[in-house]
């Protein structure tokens, strides 16, 4: 166990080292007179690293990070709660699902960037307009998966539960919900990233703080190092949220058969 996870970590670090190595070489060693990853567009790993350190040391980053974190979490929680609720509702009300089906799909296809001014109109410039943007991304991913997850419930288990005399609410709690969980978690892994993307894009389109603001500001002055540093912090940070999701997932899905001991 110990050894296996050490090996895994070593391999992960190796991947990072290789990727950074390619980046370094691409941005500082010219091949046939041309840089594969010109510094103007890609900065260099060392610069980015120094910038990240500087951001943290100067303490400047915390305020931005905190705002973006709040937005991301709110978008994630609201979007997935909404997706789960509406997903279940639609799955249990086939008529409603059929009627609204085309509209859901239409709304899902609207470019969020265009919607930004409307969100600002309704929700102001604070965090809520960014949260709304994230929600529109997260919601659909979760919604479609939960909807499908509920429809995939084993018919025998369902019949058994109904014969047991379960009410619709009890069915939800004891059958549909646990059965749709693995679908839901699959969608949550996608949505964590999307919640963050929504928040950052929202900040990018209009804000006074947050990681998206930092990146936007850096972009306007060709400060690629700043852009990459921002993106780096961003992604480090999504890993933390995803890790929390995975913890919850493990806890809720303990009943699943694991790869059996010594299963070949």
């Amino acid at each position: 166990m110990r050894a296996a996870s050490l090996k895994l970590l070593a391999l992960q670090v190796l991947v990072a080292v290789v990727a950074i190595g390619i980046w370094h070489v691409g941005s500082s060693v010219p091949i046939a007179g041309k840089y594969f990853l010109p510094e103007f567009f890609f900065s260099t790993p060392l610069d980015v690293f120094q910038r990240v350190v500087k951001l943290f040391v100067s303490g400047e980053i915390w305020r931005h990070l905190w705002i973006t974190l709040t937005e991301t979490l709110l978008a994630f929680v609201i979007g997935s709660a909404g997706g789960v609720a509406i997903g279940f509702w639609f799955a249990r009300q086939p008529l409603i699902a059929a009627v609204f089906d085309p509209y859901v799909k239409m709304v899902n296809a609207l470019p969020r960037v265009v919607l930004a001014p409307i969100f600002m109109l309704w929700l102001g410039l604070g965090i809520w307009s960014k949260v709304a943007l994230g929600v529109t991304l997260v919601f659909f991913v979760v919604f479609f998966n939960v909807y499908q997850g509920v429809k995939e419930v084993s018919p025998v288990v369902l019949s058994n539960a109904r014969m047991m005399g379960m009410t619709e609410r009890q069915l939800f709690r004891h059958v549909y919900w646990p059965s749709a969980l693995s679908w839901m978690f699959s969608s949550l892994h996608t949505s964590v990233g999307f919640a963050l993307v929504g928040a950052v894009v929202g900040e990018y389109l209009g804000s006074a703080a947050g990681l998206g603001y930092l990146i936007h500001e850096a972009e306007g002055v060709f400060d690629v190092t700043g852009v990459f540093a921002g993106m780096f912090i961003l992604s480090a940070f999504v890993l933390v949220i995803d890790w929390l999701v995975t913890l919850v997932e493990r806890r809720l899905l303990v009943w699943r058969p694991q790869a059996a001991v010594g299963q070949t």
Partner: protein
Amino acid sequence: MEMAARREPSRPSAEPESAATAVRLDGVKVSFVIRGAAVFDAVAPTSFEVREGEFVSIVGPTGCGKSTLLNVTAGLLKPSAGHVEIFGERLAGLNRKSGYLFQQDALMPWKTALDNVAIALEVHGTPRKEALEAARGWMGRVGLARFCERYAHELSGGQRKRVGLAQVLIRRPRILLMDEPFGPLDAQTRQIMGNLLLGLWAEDRKAVMFVTHDLEEAIALSDRVVIMSAGPDARVIGDHPIDLARPRDAAEIRLDPKFHALHKRIWDQLREEVAKTYEEGAR
């Protein structure tokens, strides 16, 4: 066990001694439409009654429509023609007065064995603690006291079936629908479970519809054995009352000479039927 009985709210304490009809199938016909195209007439119009307190076994060749009839009685499948009456009332929707032990595994994989049994009571309002206690009793009764914390995939086939049995019996439904409940059990465990079932049944005059492939078991347990013909268009072709004395012991009754006479009579009818299915199928 007493606890469970006390908790079941819809249980009238004093049932009239008259043999009211518990289940009545009236001209029930089932046709399956196969992917919107071909129609398969599984069960020809069938009429059929189970009285209160009666234990009826259904035997018939594989694929004749036994499970289908139970599904119709449970209200899970709407008959293509005819209708079902439960205690004199026409069935629309689910039959909430019966417990159904399915032929296939039907445990909730996300609940432990114990929770799977307890939930059957919790659903009807029993507080969780009481329900767990009652469930633990039932797990013991089906011989699985040590397997309470297992999930379904950590149990053997026969163990899963017994958890299912406990799940159905703990509710003490007025009508029991059982589809090969003892199929994956060894002969001895079958008898023990058979006696358990008989004991419960004797206690409160349930109506039982019991599907089995084991004719001896059918005779040992039932008041009547119904024989179905081979499908498609399966019908009831024999209805044999079993006039063996009660109370019975599922093992000892087999030594009764009357048992053997009955067995031979029914078996002869059945064998003919099965031969027919086989030839039909092979054609």
